[in-house]
């Protein structure tokens, strides 16, 4: 049970990995159509609330998805406003030795310049070595790479959203065990960034 892991672990990575394995939907905490897995994190210094977004199904159960698998994204509530959160994402990515490629609005290039939805930002980062190694193993990986981290302001809350590499690996690349290390690296990268961002 991931909550148990959270109470005994001193690492966000442990919590992150555990969440990826099992999501417990708390049906009592429905807010704005979302079920929040609202669990206090392991330390007071980490004032974030870890959530896994899953819109409320009529037949909500303990499963995080219809398949019983965890959702394909990990969502963390940020204690900061959107701009500060984006700044933190960029700083955290650079701190993880990722190359900062840029930031874009989700609808940028699809609407007139200046009319973008400024509540949805994508931060693009890249680990060139990881990307090159990944594509050498499986060219389909480009459908999920390079790395991007979304910062979204929705229903009055700022959320940081990343892909959930462990789940995507199972769903899309289950037949390619060579990719295990790639997805492990991605999980570590995202977990580290989420930890930094919400401090």
């Amino acid at each position, binding site marked *: 049970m991931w909550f148990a892991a959270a109470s005994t672990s001193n690492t966000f990575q442990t919590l992150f990995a555990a969440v990826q394995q099992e999501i417990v*939907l708390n049906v009592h905490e429905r807010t704005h*159509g979302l*079920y929040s897995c609202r669990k206090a994190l392991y330390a007071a210094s980490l004032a974030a609330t870890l959530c896994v*977004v*899953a*819109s*409320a*199904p*009529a037949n*909500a159960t303990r*499963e*995080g*998805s*219809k*398949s019983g*698998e*965890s*959702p*394909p*994204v990990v*969502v963390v509530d940020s204690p900061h406003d959107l701009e500060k959160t984006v700044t933190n994402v960029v700083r955290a990515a650079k701190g993880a030795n990722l190359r900062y*490629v840029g930031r*874009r609005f*989700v*609808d*940028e*290039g*699809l*609407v007139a310049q200046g009319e973008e*939805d400024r509540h*949805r930002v*994508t931060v693009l980062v*890249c680990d*060139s*070595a990881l*990307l*090159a190694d990944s*594509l*050498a193993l499986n*060219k*389909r990986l*480009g*459908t*999920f790479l*390079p790395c*991007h981290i*979304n910062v*979204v302001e*929705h229903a009055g809350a700022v*959320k940081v*959203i*990343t*892909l959930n590499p462990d*789940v995507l690996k199972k*769903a*899309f690349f*289950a*037949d390619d065990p060579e990719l295990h290390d790639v997805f492990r690296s991605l999980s570590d990268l995202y977990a580290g960034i989420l930890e930094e961002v919400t401090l």
Partner: protein
Amino acid sequence: MRRLLSTLLFVLASSAWGETFIEARVDDAFPEAMLRLQSAIRSHGYSIARIQKVDKGLGRFGYDIAPYRIVFFGHTGLVHGRAAHHPELAPFLPLRITVYEESADSSALVAMNPEVLGQLFASTELDPILSDWASDVRAIVNAAASDTD
């Protein structure tokens, strides 16, 4: 002369999840495959948001890989419509199709099948959105891989 496409595939990259990737092989050089894809995207009512030149980007850091691009596309309805109410979909927007060179006269188009995401999310509200995305991506890939000259 009409370019021949052998396309052949809608490979059902099979797994317990069904068709995990929507993909096709195009018997065309990479530049032509790119043009075909962009034309197909526009003919299906979408606009191209940007093209990420992965090969060029990696080349600047000393990695030599064959032509590899990611084409991001969408339209106002896609990004401002139903999906806007579901922040969990943000990482998958805009839609994208990857194009890469397989050989001098063969290229590949690959996209993640959005319907697989539907199985991973709990909400049934997302199913019609992801199904529509899959339908459009499939139509675009199919059109780009069809011999329309």
